């Protein structure tokens, strides 16, 4: 039996799949187990297959695998959808009394566990609790102490009153007892608990939490999957820290509101996904030329156009790197883990204000919808640093006034960074514009001033390269012949994939890069390797392109654009295949 357990519930959208998964994930986390969740959902609210998956272990888990141990199937389709992942020790829990489940055939010799979910739920007080009955049954199958479930039921239903909580606890026990009495045998699972305390959160929540920690006070956004959770997280919470969320009429408005708030001196942010980034691109150049600090978060989903809104992709790299007409200095950060979503958000605010530039914070759907456990001190708030850069007030503004007493908001400083005066600062009144301007912010077409201002803005990037560390994270054997490079959320799957490869005697050096621009120079690393493979969730290899451009050497590519994230087994296979040169490196279908 493997150490980790893979659990899933699947059914129709609207069946409460998400919240059931969440309840179980919380129960596992509270019981001191690590959890990594993933979702399989379609772009509709009711109808259509949807599933919530949990991988859990006493050790950290960083990815999904293609194996399912316990499956709660609310529909017959759920069994078919997960057929490949079932094995002979799997247990499939379903309600055999329901007419729609009559024809269920459980494949691969897995155990079919018929539990009258609906009937037992009714006995406990209402059919609606059938998912909780199934959770109770799963507790029994896995020998997981059901008391852990109680606390997450309390958390989920506490608002609805004690009676509801009690009924749910009862429903869970009905499921547990039914399995114990009707199938009195050992399923071979024994889910250990520990004394560890973990927190469980997803990437969007980590970004929202990072924003508040960094002192973000203003957020304007427009709902879009999979970025909406950032806005939903901040709503209500940011107010407690003196901030505000505004739901704008569209993304054009959202980024302009955020720009206005930033000019008024607030740490300000907006978040969206690809289609919204398109709209925001119009104002992106204004943010950069007006030298306004702004964090723009792109939680990527599958494109182009509306693409596959609920599916994974890392296709916006070029957009964030090159988007916008003209030439625009910017930073592009791409967290590679959920905890990094927090820390990179903090860093994004500091970079934005220190260099008075737009900062793209690029995350992806796989990270946004995944919940993962962390030790709470991963988010140690005492470690959060705030650097507001060159802000001047009435005491030191004199140094930045010209001979006529006018504030030089776009002063062509040697390091490219001008002083910043928040509106309300005496003697700081100044103009800024998206038109090319002089040091006072006034429109100009003077050739010298134009060049001076373009150079000044670009100089910020050079200064940042000197002052900041745009580094990478490294795993595996630094001497290995094979170098794998990836960005974004692929890190977890690749790290596990490496272990699988190591077991087959294939050593890999793995570099995970959280900075798209500026980014670390990987020339030496690529040169030292015999084979370099760049892994990313897009069809053309956008990151591979920039690596090739940087190091002037060809790299191999592993690209996946099915809409589904990489899993560890698959990555290991693909790396192997690339090394053997036996198949094409492209994973074209699941």
């Amino acid at each position, binding site marked *: 039996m493997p150490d980790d357990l893979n659990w899933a519930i699947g059914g129709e959208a609207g069946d409460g799949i998400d919240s059931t998964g969440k309840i179980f994930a919380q129960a596992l986390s509270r019981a001191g187990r690590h959890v990594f969740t993933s979702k399989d959902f379609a772009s509709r609210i009711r109808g259509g297959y949807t599933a919530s998956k949990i991988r859990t272990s006493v050790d950290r888990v960083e990815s999904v695998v293609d194996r399912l141990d316990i499956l709660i199937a609310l529909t017959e389709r759920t069994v078919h959808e997960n057929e490949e992942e079932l094995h002979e020790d799997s247990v499939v829990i379903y309600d055999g009394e329901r007419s729609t489940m009559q024809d269920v055939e459980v494949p691969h010799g897995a155990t079919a566990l018929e539990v009258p979910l609906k009937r037992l739920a009714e006995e406990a007080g209402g059919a609606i609790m059938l998912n909780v009955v199934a959770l109770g049954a799963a507790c029994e199958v896995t020998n997981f102490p059901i008391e852990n479930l109680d606390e997450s039921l309390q958390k989920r239903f506490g608002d609805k009153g004690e009676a509801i909580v009690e009924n749910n606890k009862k429903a869970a026990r009905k499921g547990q007892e039914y399995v114990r009495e009707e199938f009195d045998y050992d399923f071979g699972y024994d889910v250990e608990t520990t004394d560890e305390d973990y927190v469980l959160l997803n990437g969007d929540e980590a970004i929202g939490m990072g924003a*508040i920690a960094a002192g973000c006070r203003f957020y304007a956004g427009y709902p879009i999957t999979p970025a909406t959770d950032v806005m939903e997280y901040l709503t209500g919470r940011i107010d407690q820290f003196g901030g505000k969320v505004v739901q704008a009429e569209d993304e054009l408005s959202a980024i302009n509101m955020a720009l206005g708030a930033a000019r008024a001196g607030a740490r300000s942010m907006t978040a969206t996904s690809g289609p919204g980034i398109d709209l925001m691109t119009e104002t992106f150049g204004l943010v950069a030329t007006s030298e306004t600090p702004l964090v723009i978060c792109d939680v990527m989903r599958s494109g182009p156009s509306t693409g596959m809104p609920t599916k994974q992709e890392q296709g916006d790299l070029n957009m964030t790197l090159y988007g916008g007409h003209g030439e625009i200095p910017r930073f592009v950060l791409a967290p590679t883990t959920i905890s990094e979503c927090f820390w990179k958000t903090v860093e994004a605010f500091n970079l934005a204000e220190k260099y008075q530039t737009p900062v793209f914070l690029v995350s992806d759907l796989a990270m946004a919808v995944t919940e993962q456990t962390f030790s709470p001190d991963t988010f140690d708030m005492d470690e959060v640093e705030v650097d507001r850069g060159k802000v001047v007030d009435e005491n030191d503004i004199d140094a930045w006034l010209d001979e006529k007493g006018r504030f030089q908001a776009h002063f062509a400083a040697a390091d490219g960074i001008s002083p910043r005066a928040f509106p*309300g600062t005496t*003697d700081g009144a100044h103009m800024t514009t998206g038109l090319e301007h002089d040091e006072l912010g006034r429109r100009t077409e003077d050739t010298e001033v134009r060049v001076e201002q373009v150079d000044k803005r670009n100089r910020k990037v050079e200064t940042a390269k000197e002052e900041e560390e745009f580094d990478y994270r490294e795993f595996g054997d630094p001497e290995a012949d094979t170098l794998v490079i990836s960005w974004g959320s692929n890190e977890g799957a690749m790290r596990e994939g490496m272990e699988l490869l190591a077991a087959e005697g294939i050593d890999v050096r793995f570099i995970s890069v959280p900075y798209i621009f500026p980014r670390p120079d990987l020339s030496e690393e690529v040169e030292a390797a015999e084979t370099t493979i760049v892994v990313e969730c897009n069809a053309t290899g956008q990151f591979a392109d920039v690596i090739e451009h940087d190091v002037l050497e060809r790299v191999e590519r592993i690209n996946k654009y099915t809409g589904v994230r990489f899993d560890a087994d698959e990555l290991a296979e693909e790396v192997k295949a690339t090394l053997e040169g036996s198949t094409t490196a492209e994973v074209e279908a699941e």
Partner: protein
Amino acid sequence: MSSDIRFTDFKSDKQPTWCPGCGDFGTMNGMMKALAETGNDPDNTFIVAGIGCSGKIGTYMHSYALHGVHGRALPVGIGVKMANPDLEVMVSGGDGDGYSIGAGHFIHAVRRNVDMSYVVMDNRIYGLTKGQASPTSREDFETSTSPDGPNQPPVNPKALALAAGATFIAQSFSSNSQRHAELVQEAIEHDGFGFVNVYSPCVTFNDVDTYDYFRDTIEDLGETDHDRHDREQAKEKILEGDKEYMGVLYQDEDSVPFEEREGVEGSMAEIPDGAPEGAMDLVREFY
């Protein structure tokens, strides 16, 4: 804020490049007068402008200012005011800027009712791009891009505003400088979104909606018994197609600005050196 602020303090030392006689001169003077008259000074004032001849206004005035992209000035103004309600925020632009590319934002800014003023220089033409039809151009107005006229009725911005739930709607005429300054002043003093459409003639490209036309047609509501608090009366006046009015068409006495409803208190510019106090509670929520 000092009490000896004069309207010329709001003037920058940049000479306007507007055509001699352009209505925008009078519009801007009235705005500066109104700002000084309401006790503001350049250091607490934020002016956001759109694109167009009209949008250049932020350059010719002296204050904290942002000259944005075409049509998006209103959201910028909302962001400024939400982040610091102590600032006096004024947004300004043209009819093309505000009612064409920015029409969506206009409706939503009106219904959001943030406490700021919005002054639109309506010349019924695109000036800066040299004379194309604007959304307020007459149906039969011949321009370089509409040789037979736009063949569609002009938008009625005051009707849009009223329908969207505006709390202050005024119409002014740049040439009547005293009255114009008064109306902008009322918009500033209004608790909420103070919308002023200003007839601001383009002497270069519009030979129909001229000073003479407005002078001959315009009727000052201040000299009639129009009740600005009566929405029905406002509606009638606004929908009368062939009449031009000057004055406050509508004002909601009970207007409460959005930022006040949302409980925004003071500037958001000050933040602690590290994570705010109590931030660890945010982590504990995820247990």
